[in-house]
């Protein structure tokens, strides 16, 4: 479960990106986080991953209190999250398989488990045949599916995706979003930042709209607000 209570966040240069957000996401939910460019969506993601710290309010993530978490617990908290970015962030000199093995190894998974888990996850994202390819040999959509596989491979409680379809054409975007929905149906909480109205409308999921560091709407269904692109 993710819970933000009266959270505020200010960057070092004085930009106040989050101006008091209260938000709860239950286990198993699928939530779209939408809003215009610069409204603070990515900052919320960074608050969830512990990349930046709130200057006020409280954040609870899967049982960890991010506001007063100890240095030692941060890695454990991060293991409950799988993060996906717009720019994929795959390691280009490693194969698809090695990209996944790399993050499993990073959390101490034994070789036996790695060999068992990777084919399963690659099957889930329909990339079994690309295990030995390098990221540069794949299309954008395939690379993003590898990124999803990587986010899933350590079996996190929650998947967080910041504009995962930003670099993809509409068809690939739809495919990818459907994949995230499928993953959600298998039991993982999914939080997706996007500003693609059409996509959001199509799925009829919970939509939280952010503007200027505030939550301006939180409802199930379509995209609220007209001034989206920026």
């Amino acid at each position, binding site marked *: 479960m993710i819970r933000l209570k009266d959270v505020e966040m200010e960057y070092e240069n004085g930009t106040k990106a989050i101006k008091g957000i209260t938000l709860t996401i239950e286990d198993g939910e699928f939530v779209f986080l939408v809003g215009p460019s610069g409204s603070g969506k990515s900052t919320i993601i960074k608050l969830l991953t512990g990349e930046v710290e709130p200057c006020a309010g409280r954040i609870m993530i899967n049982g960890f209190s991010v506001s007063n978490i100890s240095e030692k617990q941060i*890695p454990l908290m991060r293991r409950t999250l799988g993060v996906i970015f717009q720019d994929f962030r795959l390691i280009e000199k490693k194969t698809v398989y090695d990209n996944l093995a790399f993050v499993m190894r990073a959390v101490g998974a034994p070789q036996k488990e790695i060999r068992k888990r990777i084919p399963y996850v690659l099957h889930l994202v329909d990339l079994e045949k690309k295990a030995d390819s390098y990221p540069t040999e794949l299309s954008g959509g395939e690379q993003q599916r590898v990124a999803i596989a990587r986010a899933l491979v350590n079996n996190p409680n929650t998947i967080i995706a910041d504009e995962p379809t930003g670099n993809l054409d509409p068809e690939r975007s739809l495919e990818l979003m459907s994949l995230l929905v499928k993953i959600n149906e298998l039991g993982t909480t999914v939080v997706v930042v996007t500003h693609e109205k059409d996509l959001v409308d199509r799925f009829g999921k919970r939509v939280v709209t952010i503007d200027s560091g505030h939550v301006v709407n939180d409802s199930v269904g379509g995209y609220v607000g007209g001034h989206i692109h920026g």
Partner: protein
Amino acid sequence: MAKRHDFRYFFHEGLSNMFSHGFMSFAAIGITVACLLIMGTFTLVAVNANALLADLEQENEILAYVDDSYTEEQAKALQSQLEKVPNVASATYISKEEAMEDFKAQYPDEEMFQDLDPAILRDRFAIRMVDLKLQSQTVEKVKEVEGIAEVNAFEEIAGGFVTVRNVATVVCVALIAILFIVSVFIISNTIKLTTFDRREEIAIMRMVGATNGFIRWPFVYEGFMIGFLGAVISFFLQWALYEAVAQGVDTNDTLQLIRIIPFSQLWVPVAGVFAGAGILIGVGGSLSAIRKFLQV
């Protein structure tokens, strides 16, 4: 989530880190070798100078000549007085006749020396000292003993070796300190380069919840390997250098009296110190490189 130390993984990563910067790693190993070689060479010179000093302390004697007017009885009586002088370990009486025999034995081929009258020589004491460094004071004290006419000492030789040893020690300590710092600095920069190369991987590891320890280990291994390789290479170079110098001293006539300690007696401490210092330099360098890098 296993907590065991993934030795094979860290070793493999550390090794591939090292090869990803072949030239820098080569430079880092080179400077470590230079540091250890200079350190080793000066230390070995100091060790040999020390051994020589110990030899001299054993063998080098002061000769105290007894006044001609003293009878043999009177002369022998001086022994107890001489042995009371501070820093005198022993005083051995040598009569004119014994001295003459020794002298003749030294020059068996010189006809003209063979029938010399012992009367031209003086009775003497061969004095050994406790501490060679105090030789000049001891000589003064021995001169003050009534009945001792003259004292003969090999001050230059002893003094020379004391100086060599002291200079070697000072230069050694200073050089080691400087080179140590330079080596750590260069290794640190080599590893900073690797951490920069690997910043994407590090970011991903951190994102998926790798511990700081896990992220650090490959760099520590890299430093360790650089230091250890440096130590191994320097050991063999040091060995070769030592044997070459020993050979040179051995075949040089004027240096005959210098006894070089065989390397077979020294290799264990040399290997130990080199490995220890190399690893210290390598791991120190890597820790200083990643200390800053891993603060988020």
